[in-house]
């Protein structure tokens, strides 16, 4: 009984650590910032081409994760 319970607590702990609003919002914010930098950088046309997809993904992610519990 106790052998079964221990991993489930550990799993919940890991999920709680990752699936929280703070870290997810931070990840989304980083993706948005990376997208904006890619849009305006003068070095690579390829990076510029992927910038919109990156910003859009970050923005959608931010909108979703801002609804996740604290």
């Amino acid at each position: 009984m106790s052998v079964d319970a221990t991993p489930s607590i550990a799993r919940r702990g890991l999920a709680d650590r990752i699936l929280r609003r703070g870290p997810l919002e931070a990840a989304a914010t980083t993706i948005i910032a990376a997208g904006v930098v890619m849009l305006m950088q003068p070095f690579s046309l390829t990076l510029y081409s992927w910038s919109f997809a990156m910003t859009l993904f970050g923005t959608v992610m931010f909108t979703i994760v801002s609804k996740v519990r604290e």
Partner: protein
Amino acid sequence: MNELSASSRITYRAVMVRPGVARRIRGLSDKTLAWLFITPTIVLLLAINIFPLLWTIYLSFTNYRANRANVPTIWLGADWYQSILTDPDIWAAMQVTAHFVIWTVVIEAVLGFGLAYLIDKKFRGHGLWTTIILLPMMLSPAVVGNFWTFLYQPQIGLFNYVVAFFTGRAASSFQMLGDVTLSPWAIVIVDAWMWTPYVMLICLAGLRSIPDYIYEAAEVDRASKWRQFWSITLPMSLPFIMLAVLFRGIENFKMFDMVNLLTGGGPGSTTEVASITLKRAAFESWRTGYSSAFAIILFVTVFGLANIYVKALNKVKSR
């Protein structure tokens, strides 16, 4: 006395004539009343904000041209997006925007924080100086654009004479708005002049929110003024500086009016920021579908930055 009795008679009749309406309104729940009051606002927002946004998204996938509204509209998929995101000219416009945004934000943040730090010292006449410093921010961008065009005139403009006084160059030997190298800096100077006071205000709010007892504790610990600045003032006002930087970054990313009045994107395309390219595509070339796609790209970027802004704002609020 007669007037009073007449008015009370009218009130009495009004209550007596339509008791059903009053009872019905009294019978409404708080939730229903709230909906009743906010419905006009929601309808207005849907009509002037949400519908045009959805319509622009739709148009960005079509070949629609506003000057040929009768031509059948063809669905193009993501062609315009692909075209914009592989176009070196649009990429160049983004780099011009980046130059404008980065330099204005850096200059405004440094000068704004410096001015706020000085104003926070509460020297004699600091109220008057605060008002004088805030004046440019209160002007319309159209007015600012017009009078800086005069200030930058190589023959009669004050700016050239001031530069000539300090550098020894002839006043008419350079053109701030007509020179390929100088014109991107000309728009940076005007924006910094206009919006540094705004950054100063936000930084001042940050500086005034630092409790005095922290400085008193630092004094007790014999921390030098330099140490107090680096260990207390700067870290504690950093969220406010970030807020100002983000806000100015978003505003300058979509800057149009001032740049359009000062240079119109010229000479050549050296000051053609993204919003001017968008205006040219939409209202000079009449490529409505293409410009809609471009507008959506800019919108998503600004929306993404606004999310970061809200996050920073929440951090400041939680302090």
